[in-house]
């Protein structure tokens, strides 16, 4: 590192003006090779966050999805080819820089060999696992910024 990177600043409350173009349009019925991950993001008082934007990064895809007025997000994702997870950046008003987390599709027992999960305290690993829903290829994953169920965030 020869030069110091530019400082990060919050996306603020009105990011949809600039970031909507790349947002995935809501689609409730993913194609057979895709999965739908949906959930709600909560602040430290368990209130849904209506102005957050998620970016799912994998080895074969980039998907951006913003929360709606109820703090819900929906993302249709292709299964990653070379990993079991998506890296997820979450931006919002109130965060001066994004948080980085990961989401695994399925039960944590499936992923117990994963090196990134091994660094996570066992009692918090379930915060990174999306639960399979009743419908095939549907998963639900809630994110908690703080509190007893605070999602694991990684150094970024």
């Amino acid at each position: 590192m020869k030069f110091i990177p530019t400082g990060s600043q919050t996306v603020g409350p009105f990011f949809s003006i600039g970031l909507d173009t790349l947002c995935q349009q809501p689609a409730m019925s993913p194609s057979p090779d895709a999965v739908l991950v949906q959930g709600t993001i909560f602040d430290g008082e368990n209130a849904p966050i209506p102005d957050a934007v998620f970016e799912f990064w994998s080895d074969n895809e980039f998907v951006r999805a913003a929360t709606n007025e109820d703090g819900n997000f929906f993302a249709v994702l292709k299964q990653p080819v070379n990993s079991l997870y998506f890296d997820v950046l979450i931006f919002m008003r109130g965060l001066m820089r994004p948080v980085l987390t990961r989401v695994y599709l399925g039960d944590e027992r499936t992923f117990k060999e994963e090196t990134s999960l091994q660094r996570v305290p066992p009692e918090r690993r379930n915060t990174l696992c999306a639960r399979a829903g009743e419908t095939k290829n549907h998963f639900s994953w809630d994110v908690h910024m703080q509190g007893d169920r605070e999602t694991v965030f990684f150094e970024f």
Partner: protein
Amino acid sequence: MTHSAEDRRVLLASQPPYLHPPYVSSKKRAPARPLVALPSALASFKGPVFGQDSLQPGDCDLTKQHSGEPLGERIIVIGKVTDDDGHPVRGALIEIWQANAAGRYKHKNDSHAAPLDPNFSGCGRVITDNEGRYSFVSIKPGAYPWRNHENAWRPAHIHFSLFGAGILSRLVTQMYFPNDPLLPFDPIYNSIPDESARQRLVSQFDWATTQPEHALGYRFDVILRGNRSTPMENTRP
């Protein structure tokens, strides 16, 4: 690739913490527990690539997106995007959004009693060229009030979202304007601990870019973290 302790200290001081109490909404949204270290696999995701064909005509000129000209002081913003080794970042998508000249965003949740401008949407997109350079035309945004604290006003700013070589290079920031009297009072600008890092968020007036009878020029260069750089340690709550 491996950073010295000094590199890490400088990097940390150049970036805002998650919890910055003067910015009130960080209190309920900043992670409270220490961040967890990741193995190096993070750098393996190259991220999306955007070609010029992902832009629409007019994306780089926010004054030409409607039938008439927007009100306000026309500006040309130029700059160069490099990585932290000084190499140009080519083909970097930059997404831009901003308030109009009266300080009003075209957004349903903006309740500031300033007029919307039918000729200004405030959204732009550009991609850097082979030397990492970009430019766009817009109008100078106005300051606007917010409810963070008593008599709180945001300094004029343009939001920037940038994609570099991968996820570690991802950056969202704000470009400010020189000599803005609101900067010393702004908790968002002042969330960056290091003064020189803060000042690099302030664009510079640029004679060479200024065009007679047309627009004032401002220069705003951006440095992205390289894809091989180490994630920031941050064990502060």
